[in-house]
């Protein structure tokens, strides 16, 4: 059963009482919240994700609830609780959805230390995965959203989850947060993208989410083989440049980009080594999304033939 199979009022009711248990790739969470405006957004954005049959082991018990002191007046504030404890300062009620999405990602980042976690967007086509490891603000989400609506399957816009047993990438397709100018860029580039409301004044500016395509969610238990590593960087007004990266440099760039390289120690060293060996590695500087898409398409098609 999927979130979307439940009628919205019932979904909201369960969410407020017992909480719903839902799975995003390897991550199973239970969420409880009495906030109805949040429930209706979740019902839409999470509609394709499976509900988990209970009893089950749940990776993260999350609640979004009202802050005790700032409950109603002057401005209601919310807290995200994990296992009953707040994981950050309170925030305005209006930011519920982006903050929850961030909170769920934080749970994964803190708890999934059995996997190597790269800070990367990952997409797959014809069984081969393209990784875009990048720092925030380097245009990773924009590219990811564009690729995801141009024939690529979304694995994740934030986490390159590498399974130590076989080095395969595990999908965790979550809503794709676009920030500021990239919201309109994607609206123009991919009108078919299902974009949610814009949340203004968050700690990352204005944020709007793209709902992960249904097919990506349906196939979220299919891991993918890494094939290309492209380090993107959006620079206003720059000329398009795609340049190969020598393997030793690529190794360092991937290793320093990981969330938990140090925690996995030798395992991480070996996994990154294997990945870089198996992949063609490039840097991509771009300012125009269409140009960047064209060059990525060419790169991944020619290697495929």
């Amino acid at each position, binding site marked *: 059963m999927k979130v979307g199979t439940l009628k919205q009022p019932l979904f909201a009711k369960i969410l407020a009482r017992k909480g719903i248990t839902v799975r995003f790739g390897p991550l199973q969470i239970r969420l409880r919240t009495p906030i109805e405006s949040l429930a209706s957004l979740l019902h839409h954005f999470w509609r394709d994700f499976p509900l988990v049959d209970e*009893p089950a082991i749940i990776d993260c018990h999350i609640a979004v609830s009202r802050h005790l002191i700032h409950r109603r007046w002057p401005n209601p504030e919310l807290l995200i609780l994990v296992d009953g404890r707040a994981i950050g300062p309170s925030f305005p009620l209006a930011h519920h959805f982006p903050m929850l999405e961030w909170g769920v990602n934080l749970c994964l980042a803190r708890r999934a230390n059995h996997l190597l976690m790269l800070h990367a967007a990952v997409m797959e086509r014809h069984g081969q995965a393209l990784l875009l490891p990048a720092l925030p603000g380097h245009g990773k989400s924009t590219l990811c959203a564009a690729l995801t609506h141009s024939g690529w399957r979304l694995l994740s816009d934030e986490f390159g989850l590498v399974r130590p047993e076989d080095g395969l990438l595990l999908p965790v397709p979550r809503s794709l947060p676009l920030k500021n100018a990239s919201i309109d860029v994607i609206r123009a580039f991919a009108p078919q993208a299902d974009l949610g409301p814009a949340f203004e004044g968050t700690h990352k500016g204005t944020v709007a989410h793209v709902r992960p395509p249904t097919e990506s969610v349906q196939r979220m238990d299919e891991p993918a083989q890494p094939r290309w590593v492209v380090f993107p960087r959006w620079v206003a007004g720059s000329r398009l440049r795609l340049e190969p990266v020598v393997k030793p440099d690529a190794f360092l760039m991937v290793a320093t980009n990981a969330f938990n390289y140090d925690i996995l*120690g030798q395992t991480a060293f070996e996994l990154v080594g294997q990945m870089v060996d198996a992949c063609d590695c490039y840097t991509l500087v771009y300012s125009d999304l269409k140009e960047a898409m064209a060059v990525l398409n060419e790169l991944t098609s020619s290697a495929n033939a």
Partner: protein
Amino acid sequence: MPDSFSQKRHAARLLIGALRRPADLPHLSLTDWDLLLRLARRTQLLGRLEADLAQLELLDRIPERAGNHLRAARNLVAHRQTRLTWEADRVVWALRGLDLHIVALKGVAYMLAGLPAARGRLAVDVDLLVPEEQLPSVEQRLLERGWMREKLDPYDDQYYREWMHEIPALRHRERETEVDIHHRILPRTSRLQPDPVLLFQQTRAVPGSPIRVLGPQDMILHALVHLFHEGDPKEGLRLRDLVDVADLLRHFGQEPGFWEALVPRAEQLQLGRPLYYGLVFSRQLLGTEIPDTVAQRAQSAAPSWLVQRAMGWLVPRAILPTHPDQSDPIAALARWAMYLRAHWLRMPPGLLFQHLARKTWRRVQTTLQPQGLGSTDKSSRS
């Protein structure tokens, strides 16, 4: 009422059961696994469960998702232990040439001495004990070689230097691990004053390091001091500290002469009372085997009948985990009481009052802050 009461008890029984009988874990239901993982995470005992199951070769007989959490915990523990061992190694390098005994305490000591208490143990800081008269030269040397002082307000700095048993934490500029240099095991202001000179007399060498560790009895007494004299208002008493005590008792209990020397040593160090409590609760909650003669001798340091009853009621409620989804006012009260007790023992009343008033005021300030702090405060500062 009986339902929620038994649920409360269930959380405690589940975690204690896992610690005492890890061999039974493969029979646990999924619902119990879910709760157990939450409890063990909160009490920082996930790594410990993993280590026990690995030792019994039972890791492939538990649910896969539970196994993932335990493996994640093991990776974190291994990483922290590597980091701590390296930091201790760097401190040794930095202090080379100074003529002194460096004694490791707690986590680093258990690791260096290869004790079973180190298995799966998530340690954060490097805690070292040095002779008080050497303190200035040790601190000076570390500051010269890359360690830095935490930024403290003047009150906190004074608090440490005048009243505490350690100096403000040091941290190397390139690394994250905190180094805490102690010159005694209880604050200067504490009612109990175990003489650090006595501790140095019975330290032991460890293979492969110039760092030494406390003698077996002293190691246990220090773990007990840590358990009963360092409170945390939310956590009350830390279960993992009692687990340390139980592990050390079980391990050193095999050494000839260990039990006979335990109570006399505690008396010599003025720590008969914490030893008494430690033996009582480690036996009661974790099933540690303690020779009756030793338990009887420790009785001589027991408090009055009334205090015994009070502690017997408070300690289990403060130390055992409660269900993370249910608020438990009784446990909260017990934890708060144990926190106050720890402070009461650490400082004379006047000073305590002053100190707690300051801390409370600060807490009030920070709880009132979140509202507008976000953007405005940051932008006005930058």
